[in-house]
């Protein structure tokens, strides 16, 4: 059987300044990230023959196929605008890897950019939808159901009732993630927080405090995928793609089916780990999509790091913290670092696989697991990265 294991590698990484960076749109940030990624890899513009684009939620300069002419990519072999919400990073790297392995492209740029913050003010307003919905979609606002935050809070509340998960458990994830962010110069939120600070942060909607929720960021991340053989000759230590997979659970609104507490991470894991030929116990570093603290907890369970329902007690000994047994979200994640959808965990996964994490570098980093998550826990991506090709 043919396999993609070790056939492709991430060779370039570009990260723009993140957060409340005003005066630019998403197209600008994308261009900046791609410029940085090409320079990082030691490639030139002429080496790039693939461009995969993923736009965020903001409308300012929203990415389109127009990114190709904006950057003067006039003879691409591969071009697509991809969107599987927060799981898209894995989808892009998967598609790029397949194209490269099959000889249809050589160096494929995957980019995410977003600029939802266009004027100084509350971050929540950045994601507000101006057009009132009609039909069944008009039920949610009539009941006062606003914001994706509430959908995830409903999922977390369900988990709490079924399994006894508490705000102390979720709070530990907020605290451990912030401890890592303190060590990352790129992170937006670097002041230490305690469990008490977590409990004192305002309710957004119970059971979520402010510190259960991710940041809102302007910025962009670009990565370059190349063949493993090409990667060895480039400027940076390659981050080989040993395993990659997707899994998706539709919300059916039917009894007995709960993507909210049982995500499709199980499916993505099956594909990615089978490809990589590794076991869960082999994983050294975790970069988990953390749009909310709860997302981390449910993801740990669905991968089988602990049994279903035991995520709370599992994290509460501090094992996700710096120096802990299971270093997780080592750049501060989306909770404290920056919110670039699946590019947040992917970018930090590349840094860790390369061994370029500085103060936050995890000593043993042979296998780095990166996840993406989108929808209301509907869409999932998994990547296993390594400094070793096999």
């Amino acid at each position, binding site marked *: 059987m043919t396999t993609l294991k070790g056939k492709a590698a991430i060779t370039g990484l570009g990260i723009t300044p993140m957060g409340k960076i005003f005066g630019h749109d998403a197209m600008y940030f994308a261009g900046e990230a791609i410029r940085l990624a090409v320079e990082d890899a030691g490639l030139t513009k002429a080496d790039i023959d693939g461009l995969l684009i993923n736009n965020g939620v903001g409308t300012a300069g929203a990415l389109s196929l127009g990114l190709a002419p904006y950057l003067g990519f006039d003879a691409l072999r591969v071009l697509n605008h991809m969107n599987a919400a927060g799981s898209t990073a894995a989808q892009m790297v998967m598609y790029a890897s397949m194209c490269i392995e099959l000889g249809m492209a050589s160096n494929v740029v995957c980019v995410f950019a977003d600029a939802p913050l266009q004027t100084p003010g509350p971050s*929540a307003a950045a994601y*507000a939808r101006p057009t*009132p*919905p*009609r*039909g*069944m*979609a*008009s*039920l*949610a*606002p*009539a*009941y*006062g*159901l*606003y*914001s994706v935050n*509430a959908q995830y*809070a*409903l*999922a977390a*509340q*369900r988990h709490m*009732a*079924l399994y006894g998960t508490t705000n102390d458990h979720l709070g530990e994830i907020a605290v451990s993630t912030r401890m890592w962010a303190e060590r990352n110069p790129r992170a937006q939120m670097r002041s230490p927080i305690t469990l008490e600070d977590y409990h004192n942060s*305002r*309710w*957004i*909607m*119970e*059971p*979520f405090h402010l510190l259960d929720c991710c940041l809102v960021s302007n910025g962009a991340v670009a990565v370059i995928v190349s063949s493993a053989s090409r990667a060895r000759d480039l400027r940076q230590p390659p981050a080989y793609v040993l395993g990659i997979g997707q899994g998706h659970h*539709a919300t*059916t*609104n*039917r*009894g*007995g089916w709960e993507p*909210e507490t049982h995500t499709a991470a199980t499916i993505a894991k099956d594909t990615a780990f089978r490809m990589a030929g590794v076991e869960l116990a082999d994983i050294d570093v975790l970069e988990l999509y953390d749009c909310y603290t709860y997302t981390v907890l449910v993801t740990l369970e669905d991968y089988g790091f602990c049994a279903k329902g035991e995520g709370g007690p599992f994290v509460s000994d501090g094992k996700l913290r710096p120096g802990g047994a299971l270093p997780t979200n080592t750049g501060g994640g989306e909770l404290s670092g920056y919110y670039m959808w699946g590019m947040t965990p992917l970018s930090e996964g590349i840094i860790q696989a390369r061994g370029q994490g500085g103060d936050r570098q995890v000593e043993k980093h042979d296998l780095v697991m990166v996840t993406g998550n989108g929808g209301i826990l509907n869409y999932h991506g998994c990547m296993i990265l390594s400094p070793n090709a096999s």
Partner: protein
Amino acid sequence: MTTQTEPARPAPVPDEVSAPYFEGARDGKLMLMRCLACGAWRFPARDRCDRCWSTETEWAQASGEGTLFSFVLMHQVYHPAFAREVPYNVAVVELAEGIRLTTNIVDCPNEAIHIGMPVQAVFEPVSDTVALPKFRPARG
């Protein structure tokens, strides 16, 4: 001189596919789509059964009985009409028919809301033409 009026809550806007749902609620009935081919209930209303893909559909009255699947207490004001309501609940109820829908729990203090509690549909008029199904604790 100006007078301050309470901003109105966003009213549901029925469209073609959802009209029987809102008309049913106005008449005190919880109406759901049911597939004529495979018998599966579905929510929200849409033109095709997601289980068997048939487009042959009927509207049938649901019992209005259910249990609380999950809930949140909204503390922030996302719409000015809810400014005096916070913290208010938003809930998901799983109906006896096996279908989940978003709603509010009424006639029950927030502190007493708990997942698994039996609930019963009630219908809250929004306008002359539209009502919203809400749920109160079931009386034993």
